[in-house]
């Protein structure tokens, strides 16, 4: 059944793909920043210095341009799922949402510009942190991509996620374990119930 939730999942699938691309782009960008080891002698060359500096500034500039789209797309997810009342999905996304907000307003640079300051991004710990962050985000988005896919299919099939077996499973198992042991294995009826054909 095509519900609003299903629509949200479909939309988020598409957007999630773009977020994955963003994250991959971040990873390659940081790799490029880090890899200045190609021609050692060249590093002492003033011409190289200019090129390198431009490179860093260019990369930082591009990275900065991606910050807002990324954060707003993710914010959109949260709002959509909130409206669709997909609480579990909202719960999964909220921590990242808060992290993004925090990062946005507490950028570690001393300028008014957001994040990725060319003057400090090359500091070892900053770069490492950014790399880790990009990898974490990518894995998170990849996982959520499949999760959205799954949820979309189910919401299309059942119209209500809470009816799907994924959500039934825990309830079922809870019921089973709650049954007193004696009742389940009661010798008197067990034979009949389990092997009625005997």
């Amino acid at each position, binding site marked *: 059944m095509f519900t609003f939730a299903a629509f949200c999942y479909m939309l988020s699938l598409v957007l999630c793909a773009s977020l994955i691309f963003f994250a991959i782009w971040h990873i390659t960008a940081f790799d490029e*920043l*880090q890899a*200045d*080891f190609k021609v*050692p*002698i*060249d*590093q*002492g*060359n*003033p*011409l*190289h*210095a*200019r090129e*390198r*500096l*431009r490179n*860093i*500034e260019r990369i930082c500039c591009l990275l900065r341009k991606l910050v807002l789209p990324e954060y707003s797309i993710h914010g959109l997810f949260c709002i959509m799922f909130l409206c669709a009342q997909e609480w579990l999905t909202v719960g999964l996304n909220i921590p990242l949402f808060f992290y993004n907000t925090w990062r946005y307003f507490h950028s*570690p*640079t*001393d*300028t*008014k*510009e957001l994040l990725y300051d*060319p*003057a*400090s991004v*090359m*500091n*070892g*710990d900053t*770069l*490492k942190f950014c790399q880790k962050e990009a990898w974490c985000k990518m894995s998170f988005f990849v996982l959520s991509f499949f999760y959205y896919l799954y949820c979309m299919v189910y919401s299309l099939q059942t119209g209500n996620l809470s009816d799907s077996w994924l959500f039934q499973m825990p309830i079922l198992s809870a019921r089973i374990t709650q049954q007193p042991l004696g009742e389940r294995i009661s010798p008197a009826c067990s034979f009949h119930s389990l092997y009625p054909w005997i």
Partner: protein
Amino acid sequence: MSSNTGFNSQNGPGGQPYANGPLQNPAVLQPPGPGYNMSHQPPYNPMQAKGPMPPGTGLYNSGPYQPIPPVSSYQAPPGQPMLNRPPMGPPQSTSPCPGPRMPPAHATPPPVSANSYYQHPPAWQYGALPPMGAPPPIGAPPPMATPPLAFVGNHVTSSPSPAPPQATSAGYSAAPSPVFNNAMQSPGPSLPPTSLHRYTHEGSDPPPKNPMAPHTYQPGMAAPYGHPPAGPPPSMRPTPPPMGNATPPLPFGPETDAGHIPTPGNGAQVPNRFDHLETGPKMAGPLPPQQPGPPARHMGLSYPSLPPGYQNTSASPMHHPMHAPTQPYSHAPQSYQQPSAGPSQLSPSLAGLSLQSQTPEALRVVNLLQERNLLPPGPFTPPTPCLPKDLQKINCHPEVFRSTLTSIPQTQSLLNKAKLPLGLLLHPFKDLSQLPVVTSSTIVRCRSCRTYINPFVTFLDQRRWKCNLCYRVNDVPEEFMYNPVSRSYGEPHKRPEVQNATIEFIAPSEYMLRPPQPAVYLFVLDVSHNAVETGYLDVVCQSLLENINALPGDSRTKIGFITFDSTIHFYNLQEGLAQPQMLIVSDIEDIFLPTPDSLLVNLNECKELVQDLLKSLPQMFGKTMETQSALGPALQAAFKLLSATGGRVSVFQTQLPNLGVGALKSREDPNQRASAKDIQNLSPATDFYKKLALDCSGQQVAVDLFLLSTQYCDLASLACISRYSAGSVYYYPSYQQQHNPAGVECFQKDLKRYLTRKIGLEAVMRIRCTKGLSIHTFHGNFFVRSTDLLSLPNVNPDAGFAVQMSIEENLVDMQSVSFQAALLYTSSKGERRIRVHTMCLPVVNSLSDIFAGADVQAITGLLASMAVDRSVTASLSDARDAMTNASIDSLTSYRTSVLTIQQPGLLAPACLRLFPLYILALLKQKAFRTGTSTRLDDRVFAMCQLKYQPLAYVMLMIHPALYRVDDLTDEGALNISERAIPQPRVQQLSVEKLSREGAFLMDAGSVIYLWIGRNCNPNFLTQVLGVPNYAAVPQNMNILPELDTAESQRTRAFVGWLREQRPFFPILHVIRDESPLKASFMQNMIEDRTESALSYYEFLLHVQQQVSK
């Protein structure tokens, strides 16, 4: 090898067995042996030193280093001084064959002592030693040979005397004998009586020791060296019976042969040692034959060496009076300590000893609440890394390269436990009086990590060397085989590159892909009404005129001028013009260069025009009424002008820029200056300056900022232009030609230094460190271009840098790590040069060793830099808390992890005893203080200084030095170029130290105060100040009159000497009670309580409270 063989021969059969005994050693020994083949192939055990590294065994590392240390330690040992010295020097030198390198040679001798240290280790060491011993024969002639003999003799005697049990305990004594035993033994030979005494003192167990004494062949060893000591021996004999045995050494000295004969006896002794080792019996067998004793010791040394290093580090173990007497002893104790660190190695009794009494000075426990006077009387000496002496001797000078921890922890978790910051402080372009410069067509570097060859690499043989940073084995190029200094061939290890930790290469053409840039100087001068009022233009133009020929450069040097107020003025100085032509650009929104070719001119060709301009410039704007300042557009113009060549821009600014791009608004609220709350506006208001600085950096342009102002100028924003372009910042608050002559003089002197000092253009600096360590944060003025590469458009001799490091991989199996800073720059003469500094530090695995190697000044300097970052990114109160916590955490860690006995009070190791004081000083420093009225610009400038000044200058700004100068004497004076410089004692910074009867000089780095007490000695007033009485001391007195009296000469010599030590010019203020400057003088009394800050004692109580939580 010769030495080895020698030993073997002496030992005869034993030699080999011995080796076995050493079991462990085998690895060590063998590797070394082969390693050094170079010239003296086998003999070269010395290689061991280096060889050891390769082996990969933990041992080997120690091997190389250790050898040396032992030596040192031995030498140090007072007891045998005589003997040792001669042996050391000569043996090595004589046995040159053996030691490919100096170290090796040393190594051999030291080993003996070393053994003593490590009794257990000794076993293998013995094995190792044998080889070493062998060499002696060769070297035999002088040192080595003798020693063995001596040993033999000793051994013989000792062997008889030794009580087996004792021996064991002594065993150590045997080996250890070098250490404490050593003390005993060694003394025996050389200074029998004293040594003996010491022994007894030291040794809590006199009896054992005595037995030991006999064993102490080692003494014998010493004796051998000491051949001459023959005299002493006699005395020795008399003293202790065992000693008597020892005395034999004397005979040895004389008769090497005899010594050999004794060997058997030695063997006997040896067994004892072995027993200790535990290999005992077997070993013993073989041992006797050999003169293993000595060799073994050597080996042992290698291992122990590290401990010895300790000894070196700690100046002197003052702790125990007993030790104190003889330095050697002290060493011994220290060595012990280390053993203690390695529990397994020490026998319980030994361990007990070491723990109780044998603490290196650096670890002496100090109760800060009880001991008040902790300041060293003279200049602070940084701790010495506990490396083998020969390595330490060539290690980089601490003023150039300094580490916060002179012992690097093995793992990051250990470092975290110690709670001390790990980092380096560099002063890479420091003016050096001696700098070896090498011209070579090929610069030898590691092929994988590009490290420059340095004194700490290992030569596997003549043709191969092993990189000490990445451990790759590289070939030695043919050219490197020839040593230009000695004009000999085949000794790559004697090349200057391998003998000097600081060296400069003149780079071949492959290091420059474009022609080296000429020196280009552009002066950007503020000529608004405000600027003219201050009168600084006169000074700048005058200084330039005077120094125009002293500007560093060659025939290509270029110069240019820009002035600005609300418009930008360029000066056409083209050759052929009758007079300079001023071109005014009033379109500051879109700056363009009116005549791009003639604004920067060749200094030599157009000198007259330039001089004309400088003479007329101050008058040209005398009547200007323009109050606006378009600094941003002026900087853009300067950038455009220089972007083709790169160079240096000197900006002189006197007010807040308020026109065009980069205009700033006043952000300071004067009412908040004394606020105890958080200080705002420490970060830049605009990123215009930073962006421009990055552009400049890309074009190799550096911007130096001179800020002369009476009002707020938003230095926090303006300083960015220098920070990211590797410039420097000078700030002269309340600069006024008429009203502040002292400030003018200071500006003049600084300007002179600035114009004439060396300059390095289009520079990059790379800092490499041994695999496993990584650099993660840099402090200073530069642009970080890649994770370990700093881009420095200009580098000046007064710039300091700091880096923070972390340990990414465990440094297990490493005895030492190295750091290399390479600075590639173009000199003002158009040469491409590389200045390389290499520092080697030992790796340790116990917390107490880490604490023992802590360099409190370096830690303070690094913490200050970190705190500056923190106050910009977070807040000032955060930074203050972080600093306080740093001291609390490290002392807590020391209390819980290192101290075995918990006592009341605030306990700190002696090496960190000043830590809380320095932290308190930082909290009261201009940059971080709260509650005291501090102008925002002053604060920001102090922060800039903390970040880019070299440590030596920063320390005075943090903790000024206070001297009493009314009673200067020539006692203990330094003699520098025939001037006697009095050296008064450094006083605590507390008002209680001031007395009305005295005169006190406070050296606060950039300013010096001379405080005159109300009842000051009239003699001082008349003889030094030239005034009849106290009341006649003028309010503003900034110079000491040149009187022809001894007192005056002394005082002026002292002040002059203080000033010479730094590149900037500290103003002298003579103050008395009524002086307005008295407040700033008193603010530097950091041990006292102020309205808003704790006194030192209160601070200690606070720390103690937190520590004991």
